[in-house]
């Protein structure tokens, strides 16, 4: 349901059924259920990277497109991964229409001094000042060095955790 700017009523105006349906029924429905998209990974292989510059984790799966009505958008992610090289880090970021939202270290990161730990990574980012229209959100990552792994729900014993990426207009 698409939200439309509420009309301004004037004195003496007859309130029509069409206006009630457009500005009350449809707008209230739109506010209750704004544009939303999500992906819960359940892949046959885990995500991996050796890249020291930000790259898409998976442009086919961890990429979401919604058509907004001009409101702010919540962008959320939860996943579990590890850096396979001691004393190195993994950095995560989001692109909106191809542009990363954060600085050189992304939105969040973790640094493992031993190279065997598994950490959960989760964030909720508030994207503001997005014009009404279609927008594409993508998860990206990089490593400082070494290699990173993001478990993708492959069913492997003790690491069958499923990352979720989601976006929702507020």
């Amino acid at each position, binding site marked *: 349901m698409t939200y439309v700017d509420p009309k301004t009523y004037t004195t003496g105006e007859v309130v029509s059924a069409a206006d009630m349906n457009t500005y009350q029924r449809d707008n209230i429905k739109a506010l209750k259920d704004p544009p939303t998209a999500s992906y819960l990974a359940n892949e046959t292989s885990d995500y991996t990277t050796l890249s020291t510059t930000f790259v898409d984790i998976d442009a086919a799966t961890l990429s979401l497109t919604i058509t907004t009505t001009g409101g702010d958008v919540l962008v959320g992610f939860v996943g579990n991964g590890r850096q396979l090289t001691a004393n190195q880090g993994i950095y995560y970021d989001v692109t909106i229409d191809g542009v990363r939202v954060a600085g050189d270290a992304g939105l969040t990161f973790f640094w493992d001094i031993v190279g065997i730990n598994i950490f959960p990574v989760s964030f909720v980012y508030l994207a503001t000042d997005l014009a009404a229209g279609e927008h594409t959100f993508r998860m990206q990552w990089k490593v400082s060095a070494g290699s990173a792994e993001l478990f993708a729900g492959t069913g492997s014993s003790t690491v069958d955790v499923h990352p979720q990426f989601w976006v*929702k207009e507020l």
Partner: protein
Amino acid sequence: MTTWTTPKTWVALEALTAAELNEQLRDNMNFLFDRPNKEYTFNTSDFTTTSSTFVDVSTLTNLTQTFGGNHVLCSARLSCYGSLNNSNLWFDVDIDGTRIGGDDGIAQLKQSPASTEHIVGFSVLVPSSLVAAGSHTFKLQWKVGAGTATIIGGAGPPLRRSFGQFWVHEL
């Protein structure tokens, strides 16, 4: 919190009654203004488990609320640790008796050395298909690979009392 009523379709020449305007406009707008939510803050005692299968963290972290049928944001921020080096801790959320994660849940911590506290956090958007209009119970659950897992609930020494939280909020 008020309840949600599916907006009606108005027809030409229909009389607007106070009862309908209150239900359709007042109550629905109040619902949108203050959506259903529930939370638990870890600010009393610690919680522990030695279970290798998913169990409830506590009855205190079982959150029951009546929702309007839309997506629910479910989030946790926990200060926790395992008693053994390289131990795994796994966390999941059970909705009305069904966990939403895979065999190993939503969030996983494998830590070294032993008893090293970490902040485990996750935020999951639960689809509306799992939260139809009505009452639902969200349970924070966990399991540990070996040894004892601990969630700090505020009973620790100074500088080790990070108060965690588990909450659900319809969006």
